[in-house]
């Protein structure tokens, strides 16, 4: 995680072109720097009691929402305010609670990010699945050249399934009792982002992919094993045929004088 004191102090919204400026107390940091493109996140932390959210913070969030990153929403807890969008999050809270809330937000946002990546990958893979599904039933000679392709897809699906499995303990964990501020923030955020339902749906989808490619792999493996045996049988047949040809030809040559 990379922290930068106010790396972006102003800008314009996509809608109106109005200029906004972040308050001097705001700090912006980047989370998930390893994420490609839209999966990165900027977190704005602003200590203090805030009866109202500064317009500049709204504008800062909206600027990202307008650019297509996804809708934003507000949450309020015990004098703290959180405005969350997929690519930007503003946390306005008393200084002593700021870090706790920030950690909870980052954790749930990380799960959301993982889910979004998995959902995108699965959505893109459906057409491939339609093409590959027949190979789960029957593998034949002309499919041999596709084994590498199928292996890569199985590997990719297993990787996606593993990612879902890795976040499962956190996503599916029951609420902590007695609740803490961090657990409340995390639970509320998970609820708003439908993390549990999405995780379950993605898991079901990934299972379909995994089952299909698992069967493809099994069929391919069975075919290759049988193919090796068939080749050996054919070679024996050819050599026996050659032997028979020689015997028969000897008879013909003798008969012909």
């Amino acid at each position, binding site marked *: 995680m990379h922290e930068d004191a106010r790396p972006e102090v102003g800008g314009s919204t996509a809608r109106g072109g109005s200029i906004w400026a972040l308050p001097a107390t705001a700090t912006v940091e980047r989370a998930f720097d390893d994420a490609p493109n839209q999966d990165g996140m900027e977190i704005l932390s602003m200590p203090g009691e805030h009866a109202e959210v500064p317009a500049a913070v709204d504008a800062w969030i909206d600027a990202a929402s307008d650019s297509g990153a996804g809708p934003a929403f507000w949450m309020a807890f015990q004098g703290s305010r959180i405005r969350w969008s997929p690519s930007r999050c503003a946390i306005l809270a008393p200084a002593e609670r700021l870090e706790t809330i920030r950690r909870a937000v980052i954790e749930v946002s990380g799960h959301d990010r993982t889910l979004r990546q998995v959902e995108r990958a699965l959505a893109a893979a459906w057409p491939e699945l339609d093409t590959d599904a027949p190979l789960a039933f029957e593998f034949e000679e002309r499919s041999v*050249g596709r084994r590498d392709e199928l292996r890569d897809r199985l590997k990719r699906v297993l990787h996606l399934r593993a990612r879902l499995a890795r976040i499962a303990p956190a996503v599916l964990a029951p609420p902590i009792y007695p609740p803490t501020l961090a657990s409340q923030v995390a639970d509320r955020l998970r609820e708003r982002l439908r993390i549990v339902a999405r995780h379950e749906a993605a898991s079901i989808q990934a299972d379909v992919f995994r089952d299909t490619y698992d069967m493809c792999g099994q069929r391919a493996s069975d075919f290759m094993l049988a193919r090796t045996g068939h*080749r050996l049988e*054919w070679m024996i047949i*050819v050599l026996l045929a*050659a032997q028979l040809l*020689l015997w028969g*030809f000897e008879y*013909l*040559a003798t008969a*012909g004088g």
Partner: protein
Amino acid sequence: MTTRLASIDLLRTIAIVTMVLVHFSENLAGYAPPLSGLGAPLFVFLSGTSYFLWSDGLVARDLSDDAIARVSVRRGLFLFGAGFAFNLFVWLPEDIFNWDVLTLIGSALVMLAFMRRVPREVLVLVAAVSLLVAPILRGMAGYAEYWENGYFESDLTLSDVLVGYLATGYFPLLPWITLSLAGYVTASWLFSRRTGGGGSGADPLRIAAIGMGLVAVSAALLLARPFLAGPVAAGMLGGWTMFPPTTEYVTGMLGVAMASLAFGHRFVDPIAASGRLAGAFGVARTFSQYSLTIYVVHHVVHLWPLWIYGLRETGEPTAHWMRAMPAGMALALGGGFLVACLLVLRTIGSRRSFGFEALMRWVCD
């Protein structure tokens, strides 16, 4: 948009042009030009190549294996029968069982129809066994006894007919089937169509290297033959001859054919696809599309007048065979025939609705 491969058209044109010139020269003047022995192996090799492309196209059109096999067998039997008719009417009835290239290609098509789904490695083994067994069969049959006068003669007995078909005729099944099978396997390496993928196959240069390797093996066998033991040198090898088709000859010509096809696919097909040299490729396409027709017609054109003239002058149709005219004149006639063929085919043949190819499609497909 045409899906023809210019490399195959070009090679088949080389094969048919070579065969026409060699046949005119040999039959009219008794002279074997330096290119003798190039055309037929290339023609047979390309029959296997074309069969792969044709059957692969039918697979892509979702035709069942059973249907493909039936059409293939019909085509093979058509060519086999056409070979007998050709022998009967062109080489006259006494040579009906001389086993010409048409009967060979017909047999090869029937064989490939049944072996199409056999693993390629097995086809390679069959080709190799055919090549290695052929000299043994020739030795068992006494090949020289069938070729005492420089051409194939046999009694009309079942055993002699079968021996001629398998080992001693002009184009016996063994070892010539090697070339057809190799053409099929080479095409399956070069032009394999993978489900869901493009038409990518093996690297042509790798295939060309294998072809060059076979040429090198052939050259090594030719060089080593004087130093080898008698049974090997005289039995398994035999020098560079087409009649009989020795191991060195078939290996060398197989290498030439494989390398030519691979180099052609690598370097000629892209040129043709870019639209350059369209005229030259158009000529090659014409010769290639009508190669079977040209093969039959060129025999009729130069042999029937020879038989009729011999019959009228001496009462013996073959009286002037191989001594009718000087080699230069025979070659010129062969060239003239090719030019006339091209003009006629380009003028009336663009629809591909006549000729032996069209007849075969009409009967078999």
